[in-house]
């Protein structure tokens, strides 16, 4: 009897573990999605460069996060700020989830945060600089702010809600993208006499495939963050998160399309694609905490905000972000996190919870943003002063692929 009950518990635990690993597969596949979106929304002459960056941040991120990053995020809490470092991860036992299951799942999350930046800094950043950036981000920057919220740090103590990482993952990537894109400067020819020029991506079909893959991957990202699947409660929660995730994405796409239709007179594919991503990023924090109806509203708000954010950065702030990563991940990540304070079924503003949760959400958003912006600024400054951040005009003109990699992605003869 006791044995049988152990059996059942073991079975349940192994079931949880497998679900988290399958979810990790879906999230890992998002790397392909990001690669496609980024290469599709930029010019062919820089394609090998951007693909290489996407490949490398995942490869290097996997190694570095295993090497030490994971422990800084999830190791024993040191004064609420950081986890205790352990080299080469830990052991191979099982208590709750097998540690390697958690490592795998967290690795693909860390790599997601890292890969967001490559799109924003595309077409003008030195490969070496990006390579170093991706090590530093996965090794230190991401783990520390991640520790605050998910590793038992001070934000989690405060009651900050970021279920699957609108802030922990996406806006970390988004703020890093903001700093990086601002510091490397706009692409050659992007601003002529201060006026932005459109530089259309070379293949929207690759971009669209990328968005479909990302949408799919999000079904690992959000429901997987439940970190369990066994039993009634988990089953209900996972199903719930699937629905909120899907509806927010759908609403984001429809909202962005509608705004683009009114504003630019035609429904724009490139905007709609980003709208779906905006909805997905936005719902990530609250996917478990809000109702499907609220998910639709969050999707709509993020989808609308996205269009104006894209314009704001392009025309007012004049930061050149070829794929819109700052708006999609930074702005909508922050917005989505805040909206948890508004829409959460328990404690949300509209559900009678007052402003308390909203305030906590704001603290989480701002402190994470501050941490990332400051550390990224220091890091990119050091890179800039040493090996340099920006490619020369000549290299930008003829394409990074030939100069950096000696290879071009399309070879037709």
């Amino acid at each position, binding site marked *: 009897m006791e044995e049988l009950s152990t059996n059942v518990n073991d079975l349940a635990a192994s079931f949880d573990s497998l679900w988290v690993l399958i979810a990790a597969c879906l999230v890992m596949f998002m790397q392909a999605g990001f690669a496609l979106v980024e290469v599709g*929304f930029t010019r062919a002459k820089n394609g090998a460069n951007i693909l290489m960056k996407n490949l490398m941040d995942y490869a290097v991120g996997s190694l570095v996060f295993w090497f030490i990053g994971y422990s800084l995020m999830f190791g024993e809490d040191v004064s609420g700020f950081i986890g205790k470092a352990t080299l080469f991860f830990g052991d191979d036992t099982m208590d709750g989830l097998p540690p390697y299951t958690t490592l795998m799942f967290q690795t693909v999350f860390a790599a997601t945060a890292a890969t967001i930046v490559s799109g924003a800094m595309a077409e003008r950043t030195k490969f070496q600089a990006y390579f170093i950036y991706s090590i530093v981000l996965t090794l230190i920057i991401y783990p520390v702010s991640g520790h605050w919220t998910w590793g038992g740090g001070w934000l989690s103590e405060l009651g900050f809600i970021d279920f699957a990482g609108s802030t922990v993952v996406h806006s970390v990537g988004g703020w890093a993208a903001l700093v990086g894109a601002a510091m490397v400067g706009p692409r050659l020819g992007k601003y002529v006499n201060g006026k*932005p020029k*459109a530089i*259309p991506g070379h293949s929207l079909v690759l971009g669209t495939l990328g968005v479909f893959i990302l949408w799919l991957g999000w079904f690992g990202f959000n429901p997987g963050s439940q970190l369990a699947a066994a039993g009634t409660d988990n089953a209900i929660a996972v199903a719930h998160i699937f629905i909120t995730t899907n509806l927010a994405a759908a609403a984001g796409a429809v909202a962005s399309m509608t705004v683009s239709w009114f504003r*630019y007179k035609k429904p724009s594919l*490139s905007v709609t694609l980003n709208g779906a991503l905006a909805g997905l990023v936005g719902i990530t924090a609250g996917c478990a905490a809000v109702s499907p109806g609220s998910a639709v509203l969050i999707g709509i708000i993020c989808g609308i905000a996205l*269009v104006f954010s894209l*314009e704001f950065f*392009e025309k007012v702030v004049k930061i050149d972000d070829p794929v*819109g990563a700052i708006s999609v991940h930074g702005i909508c990540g922050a917005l989505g996190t805040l909206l948890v304070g508004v829409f959460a079924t328990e404690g949300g503003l509209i559900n009678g919870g007052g402003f308390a949760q909203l305030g906590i959400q704001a603290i989480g958003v701002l402190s994470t943003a501050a941490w990332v912006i400051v550390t990224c600024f220091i890091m990119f400054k050091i890179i800039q002063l040493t090996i340099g951040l920006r490619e020369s005009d000549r290299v930008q003109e003829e394409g990074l692929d030939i100069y950096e990699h000696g290879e071009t992605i399309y070879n037709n003869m």
Partner: protein
Amino acid sequence: MKRVEAIIRKSKFNVVQDALHDAGIDFLTYWEVRGQGKAVEERSYHGMLYDTSIIERILISFYCQDQFVDPAIKALLASAKTGEIGDGKVFVSDVEKAVKIRTSEEGAPALN
């Protein structure tokens, strides 16, 4: 012997080809070009509108004997015209020599 170069709308290619055929031009070479002319097209990207004066055209090039030039131009004007800005141009210049690679023939027989 003349060389005729016609820059036309991509969408008119098939009708032009048929019209030229009727005018005795069975051999031609063409490729896609972009042109800057009076026609502009509005496009948007990422919600950013941009006017482009760079539009897709097809350049048809054929070599023929002098007497075919006028009928060919007539056929071109009739078939490629929409009356709207952007219809394109036809240019004629002189050619000295033509050789058919397969047979090494020169002159008129080299043209077809």
